[in-house]
């Protein structure tokens, strides 16, 4: 009997979560931002300006957004290291090569 209840409880929690009943999950722009930051950390010799980027996307009722938009993040992630360095993106990712996006 307890096995059925446990299965039913698990199924209910999973269903509610998958149907969007909670704010638990991964943000699309957050993931893209983190991916771009990872690429910048690998490319840039000085990562101090990169470490301060905030990629956090608010859960629940907050409105906080990542400092890099999805378009900026994808642009930075797809650029090669030389282009990022020469464009100044290593010093200021938000105003470098992909700043206008």
């Amino acid at each position: 009997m307890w096995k059925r209840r446990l299965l039913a409880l698990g199924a209910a929690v999973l269903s509610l979560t998958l149907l969007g009943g909670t704010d638990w999950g991964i943000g699309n722009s957050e993931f893209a931002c983190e991916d771009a930051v990872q690429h910048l950390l690998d490319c840039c010799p000085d990562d101090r300006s990169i470490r301060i980027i905030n990629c956090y996307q608010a859960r629940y009722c907050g409105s906080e957004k990542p400092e890099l938009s999805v378009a900026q993040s994808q642009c930075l992630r797809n650029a090669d290291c030389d282009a990022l360095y020469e464009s100044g993106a290593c010093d200021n990712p938000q105003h470098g090569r992909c700043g206008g996006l």
Partner: protein
Amino acid sequence: MMRGWTPLFAVAMTLGVGVGTGRADEPPPGMIEVPTVTPPPPPPAATVVAPTRDDHHGILHVAVDVGGVYRTAFGSDLVGVLAELELGARNERFGVAARFGGEVGATVAGLKYEMPTLGPVFSFRVSLRLRLAVAATFGVFMYQRATTNTAEAAVTAGLNGTVTCDLVRTRRGGGLYLLGRLGWSYIDNLEDDLGAGSSVQLVTALGYRY
């Protein structure tokens, strides 16, 4: 020397004694019967019956797969390695099992992720070496942030189809096989968007089925 009927009478008496007193299957007096040994009938030709697997009763199904994964998620390309274990039962044509899987990898940029999953799998044998399997997966997608070194997670649910081709077969129906899989998963996301949370998975792996 005998003349006239005398010799014939003597012969007739001799034969008459032999026929009248003796039986047909007895040797004539003075002769020793040598018993004839009739060889036993040859045994029936031996037929070698290979032990066959029971078609109707299931046997324990244990399989292990190890391979590479390509996945798309949140607009990024991810590559990783996968290991999984299947436990269940199968017969000659059909099998059902629980699949426990683990996937680790990274985006092309280097953002690390993990994805443990479990779910039911139903397999069908389509030819001597080819099997088709459909499965549902439930799991968690996790990745490590580059900015804070903390992890984020989301539940996932999906479906996939697998084709396996046996490279080496054992008598019991097991063997070493090559595996190809196409799957789709929904990763729960803050936008609650089906498109943003869709993840397509391609797998190539080697497996062993006990």
